[in-house]
């Protein structure tokens, strides 16, 4: 009987995240308010406090914030099974939509009109990514540590170091920076 209700909650989790996954365009942070409304206000699976705790926890983990939040919320509600159902439900819509586009539309991608569309759309996407940079960094651009390490990592990437390695060196550099500051004091 207990297992049966767990599966039911699992399916509810799947459906909840399938819906939020389907209706949030552009991914990432735009999904967070919707997930919060669904989990905290509608379903009452988590308190506001628990949701915020989850979010702080999802940030230093690689991977899409939305999927991470779904996984953690699913775990809180129904353990490992809930986590699996929630993460799967969150990913499935984007998988199906992109697969549908790749199957049905990719033969039109090479046409001159589609090329022009993607030139314009791609340029706008550059603006979007630049805005993501601005929003994430605006509070820390004046911090010398962030500035030094960030520019250092950027130079590494531009000169052909693998981005993953550059990320690692930036974290390592931060440790060295803190150590040097504490020695100087």
């Amino acid at each position, binding site marked *: 009987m207990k297992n049966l209700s767990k599966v039911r909650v699992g399916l509810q989790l799947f459906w909840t995240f399938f819906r939020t996954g389907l209706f949030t365009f552009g991914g990432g942070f735009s999904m967070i308010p919707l997930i919060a409304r669904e989990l905290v206000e509608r379903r009452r699976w988590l308190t506001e406090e628990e949701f915020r705790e989850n979010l702080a926890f999802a940030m230093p983990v690689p991977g899409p914030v939305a999927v991470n939040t779904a996984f953690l919320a699913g775990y809180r509600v129904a353990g490992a099974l809930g986590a699996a159902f929630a993460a799967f439900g969150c990913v499935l819509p984007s998988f199906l939509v992109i697969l549908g*586009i790749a199957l049905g539309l990719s033969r039109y991608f090479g046409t001159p009109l589609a090329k022009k569309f993607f030139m314009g759309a791609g340029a706008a996407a550059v603006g979007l990514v630049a805005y993501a940079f601005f929003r994430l960094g605006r509070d820390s651009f004046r911090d010398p540590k962030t500035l030094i390490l960030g520019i250092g990592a950027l130079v590494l990437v531009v000169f052909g170091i693998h981005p993953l390695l550059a990320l690692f060196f930036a974290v390592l550099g931060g440790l060295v920076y803190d150590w040097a500051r504490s020695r100087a004091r």
Partner: protein
Amino acid sequence: MTGLGPVLAELFGAFVRIGLGAFGGGASAISLLSREVVEVHNWLSPAEMAEVVALAEMTPGPIAVNAATFTGYRVAGVAGAALATFSVLLPPLFFLSLFLALRRLSRSDAWARKLASALQPGILALIAAAVWSLGKATIHGWSFGFFAAASFSILVLGKEKVHPALLVLLFGLLGMAIP
């Protein structure tokens, strides 16, 4: 159909590495995508990569997941799409499980905040590199430079009241009008 095995193995390795560095809402994944998918494996051209990012901004779901599905399909059909999508999510799911196990030992999440701030400079650098590589692939001429600047300004001034997906669609349509 010989040789699908090695290709699937390469897809797996590439997207696990992409998943490992995809922090902060997907934007930092773009520089990893252009390294692995465009430069190392030549699965997509720079212009096609920009198309995938534009597509990802207009469709539901995280950019890293969208790009994984699309690239995987291009390289090895539906099986490739499923494998790449699974691979890009493997590192986050592994780390989340690890963190959940660690949280049993300590209730405090101070270390999570510390780790997030330690990663911040590197993530910013990766996003800046993404702006550069995407810009090189899409901004050919003044009008496209104007599109990029306009979409950035609208987001800054509009305080996100205009939906980003709508902006990408709108400038795509405008692009069709350019002779």
